[in-house]
């Protein structure tokens, strides 16, 4: 396949975890890669590289998306939140505390995405049913836990 360079890097202004940032990248570069390699925000993980596993989840303008599917050119003027932006100063989010208390993480690779999905769910629905929790996290795959402790963590977060 032809791999000749036909474009140059662009500058993309956006907000990341509340801070104004300028990203320098090729327009088709994945937001996932720019966050990890340029901004060193390595909490966002690559699990599948095709939008199926949710390990790369970030929030863009309040909506959860798979950052492996977002070309960086499309985040101009956007407000991005990564897992690093979920805790405030030295205070863990209730979801994060619940994951620790309930043992919701084993290897941890799905955990940033699961936490973001859970935070997003509770913002939309503060008291979700079991069905709603499963639906809310349906875009996040875990290979370790069998999901039950993750769901318990979400329930525990609601009780706080």
């Amino acid at each position: 396949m032809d791999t000749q360079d036909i474009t140059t890097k662009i500058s993309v202004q956006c907000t990341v975890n509340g801070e104004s940032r300028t990203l320098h990248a090729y327009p088709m570069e994945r937001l996932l890669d720019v966050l990890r390699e340029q901004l060193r925000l390595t909490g966002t993980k690559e699990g599948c590289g095709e939008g199926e596993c949710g390990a790369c989840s970030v929030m863009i303008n309040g909506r959860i998306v798979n950052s492996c599917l977002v070309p960086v050119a499309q985040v101009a003027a956007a407000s991005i939140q990564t897992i690093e932006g979920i805790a405030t100063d030295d205070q863990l989010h209730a979801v994060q505390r619940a994951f620790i208390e309930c043992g919701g993480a084993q290897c941890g690779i799905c955990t940033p995405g699961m936490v973001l999905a859970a935070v997003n769910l509770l913002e939309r629905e503060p008291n979700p049913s079991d069905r709603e929790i499963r639906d809310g996290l349906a875009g996040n795959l875990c290979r370790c836990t069998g999901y039950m402790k993750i769901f318990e963590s979400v329930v525990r977060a609601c009780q706080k």
Partner: protein
Amino acid sequence: MRAHVPAYQLISPASLGEALDVLARGDGEWQPFAGGTDLMVLLEAGKLPHKNYVNIWNLSELRGIEVTDSQVTLGALTTYTEIQCHETLRAEFPMLCQAASETGGLAIQNRGTIGGNIANASPAADSPPALLVYDAELELVSAKGSRTIPYYAFHTGYKQMDIRPEELLRAIRLPLASKGLTHYYRKVGTRKAQAISKVCFAGVARIDADQIVDVRVALGSVAPIPIRCVQTENALRGQTINTATIDVAKSALRAEIAPIDDLRSTRDYRRRVSLNLLEDFVRELS
């Protein structure tokens, strides 16, 4: 990640007019790029052969849902999330909302667009059977003007569409005609989210006592394109709901679909499930 990203252009015109001017250059040299939930998957697999893309994601002319007395018009960039949240769509076109809720997962639904779903032309797409049954129309625009075509005429073969290289899908129109209709939508797949369908069925019908006054049926994943099953509809229309009617309709559907063996399912399974869904649909009408 198998692609060499500097080999791809993604330019961001400021308006629809500018985007259409770019699309008009060369014969398909430039192609539109919306939410990226299909194209980025190909990119990452190293299977995106086309190199020059026009970013249409921020074009406000392609967003928004308008409701009049006679129709609802969705901008091509309407996301699956926006579809599910819209009061009129939920009330009048529930199968479209159901299809949107079963497409991928939440993160996909926040970025995937109805226009992209149509233009990607997968025969397994979730929304097209609902759009076919709701008699959707498509508005296509170019730098030279616009035209409207019925959606059932859009797909002409596997990944072949009635759209010229300089044209862009601008909007999808749904006529408001669903009073008194029964809606039935089933997506059959390996799990409830993040699954491509083995079979996808959409049906609406208007019933009077035990008679099928009007009916529309469409299926996905059983042909090279999403299909309106006109012969099956003809076999049902005007008939009384009973086993004999169901048997005749099943014969018609059997002849109308062309399922295949592929990585997700087999021809035989798809045929059996399609016929079962048709029977379930008709039995639910009584």
